[in-house]
C-alpha cells in the first residue's frame, strides 16, 4: 500500500543550511551536503530544499550547489527558490532533481505552471503557497519570503494553480513556521475540502503527534517539516534527526 510521506524541508541561505521562525531569524544549522548524507542514512521519504535568498536577492539558482545536493541525494528531491523560467527548470532537472517548486513565480507568472507542466509533466511541478495573516487577521498568499502581501485569497489561488497543472501544492504557514506547535489544521482542512490536487502541509510540526493529527484531521496527502528534524529538545539544540521507518509507520498506521 502507498505510504504517507514525511518530508524534511531545508532552507538554503548564504551557502549553508538555516532554519527560520515565522520566516525570520535565520539560524545556522550546518552544511547542506552533510545534512543530506544524514538524511540518506535515515532513509527519508523525500527531501525539499528551498533557497531563501534567490528570489529576494534576485539571483539565479545556485546550480553548483543544486548539483552537489542532487549527486548525494538517493531519494526524490524537490528544489525551490528563484525559479522564473523554463530554461532554468531544464537545467535543474538535468542535474538530477525530480521536482521544482514555484512560489513567487506562481503568483507573478502563473502561465509558467501550465507551460512547465506540459513539458516536464504535472508531477514535476510543485507550487509552494506561503500563507500569512494580514493586518486584519485574514489569511492571504504572500511572496518574497513572506514580505509581500499579494492580497490573493488562499483557496482561490490554490484552485487556480491546480487548474494550471500543478502536480502538488505545498501549503506553508508563515505564522506557524518554526513554532513547533502543530500545523494550521483549520486552513489545511478548508483547502483539502475544496481542492483535489495533493496537498503537502508545511509549517508548525514539533513532534510526531502533530504529523499524525495533520494526516487524520486535515487529510493532507503528505507533510513537510523543518525544525522538527533539525532541532532537539526545548532549547533547540541543533541535531539532524528523522524517526526510524518503523516508528513512522506505527504512528501513522501505514500498515
Amino acid at each position, binding site marked *: *500500500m*502507498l*505510504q*504517507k*510521506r514525511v518530508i524534511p524541508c531545508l532552507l538554503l541561505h548564504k551557502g549553508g543550511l538555516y532554519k527560520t521562525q515565522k520566516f525570520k531569524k535565520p539560524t545556522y544549522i550546518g552544511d547542506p551536503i552533510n545534512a543530506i548524507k544524514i538524511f*540518506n542514512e535515515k*532513509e527519508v*521519504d*523525500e527531501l525539499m530544499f528551498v533557497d531563501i535568498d534567490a528570489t529576494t536577492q534576485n539571483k539565479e539558482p545556485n546550480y553548483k550547489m543544486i548539483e552537489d545536493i*542532487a*549527486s*548525494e541525494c*538517493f*531519494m*526524490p*528531491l524537490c528544489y525551490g527558490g528563484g525559479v522564473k523560467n523554463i530554461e532554468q527548470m531544464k537545467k535543474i*532537472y*538535468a*542535474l*538530477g532533481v*525530480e521536482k521544482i517548486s514555484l512560489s513567487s513565480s506562481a503568483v507573478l507568472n502563473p502561465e509558467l505552471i501550465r507551460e512547465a507542466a506540459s513539458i516536464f*509533466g*504535472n*508531477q*514535476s511541478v510543485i507550487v509552494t503557497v506561503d500563507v500569512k495573516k494580514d493586518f486584519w487577521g485574514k489569511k492571504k498568499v504572500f511572496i518574497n519570503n513572506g514580505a509581500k502581501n499579494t492580497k490573493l485569497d488562499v483557496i482561490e489561488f490554490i484552485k487556480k494553480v491546480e487548474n494550471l497543472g500543478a*502536480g502538488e501544492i505545498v501549503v506553508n504557514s508563515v505564522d506557524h513556521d518554526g513554532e513547533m506547535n502543530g500545523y494550521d489544521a483549520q486552513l489545511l482542512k478548508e483547502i483539502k475540502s475544496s481542492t483535489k490536487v*495533493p496537498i503537502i502541509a508545511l509549517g508548525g510540526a514539533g513532534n510526531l503527534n502533530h504529523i499524525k493529527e495533520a494526516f487524520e484531521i486535515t487529510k493532507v*496527502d*503528505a507533510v513537510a517539516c523543518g525544525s522538527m528534524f533539525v532541532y532537539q529538545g526545548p532549547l533547540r539544540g541543533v541535531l539532524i534527526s528523522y524517526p526510524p521507518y518503523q516508528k513512522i509507520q506505527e504512528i501513522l498506521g501505514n500498515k
Partner: protein
Amino acid sequence: MIAILDYGMGNLKSIYNMFKKIGIQSVITSDTKTIKNADKYLLPGVGSFDHGINSLKSAPFFETLEKEVLENKKPILGICLGMQLLTNSSEEGKEKGLGWIDAKTIKFDFEDKSLAVPHMGWNSVCPTSQDGLFKDLDENRFYFVHSYYVVCNDEANILGVTNYGANFTSSVHKDNIYGVQFHPEKSHKFGMKLLKNFGES
C-alpha cells in the same frame, strides 16, 4: 560498462549518480559505438509514451541497440516510461511500443476516487522470484510516480507486483530484458541493491 541511453527523455543524472555510488561503471550516452561496445543497457524515461517511443526509435543508435538486445542478448533494464516502452502499446498514445515484452500499458482507473492518479510515493513490491533483480532484498520499498501501468499477456513475464487500489505489475522480465515501474535511482538502499543486482548479474 552500462550504457545509460540518452534519447532526450528522463532523469539520467540520478541513475548515473547511483551507479557511481555503488561502484558500477556507467556512461550517459547516445553514441552508437559506445552503445555497441557496452555490456548492458539502462533505458530511462520520464514523459509521454509517444514522444518517448518516437525519440528512441529515431535515435541514431536504435538499430544497434535492437541488435545487441535481441540478437546478442545483452541485458537491458527499463525504468518507469522505459519499462512501458518495452510493451506493445500504451493507452497514453497511438504509437506502437518496442514489443520486447508481450504486454500492454494502460491507465489507472479506479472506482474509488480517493485514490489519486498519478500513483506517487513509496510502495512495496512483492517479487515473484528471489533471484535476479530482487536477489537478497528482504525489504522491497520503492519510489513510484506513474499514471499508467503494464499488463502482461504472459504471466511468466511478471517479476514483481504492487498494490495500489488493486494489484498491478510493477516489474517485468523476459530472458535478458527487465523493466521496473518504480525509480530504483531514487529508492535508497533498496534501489542501490536492485541496480547492483542488475549490474553484477
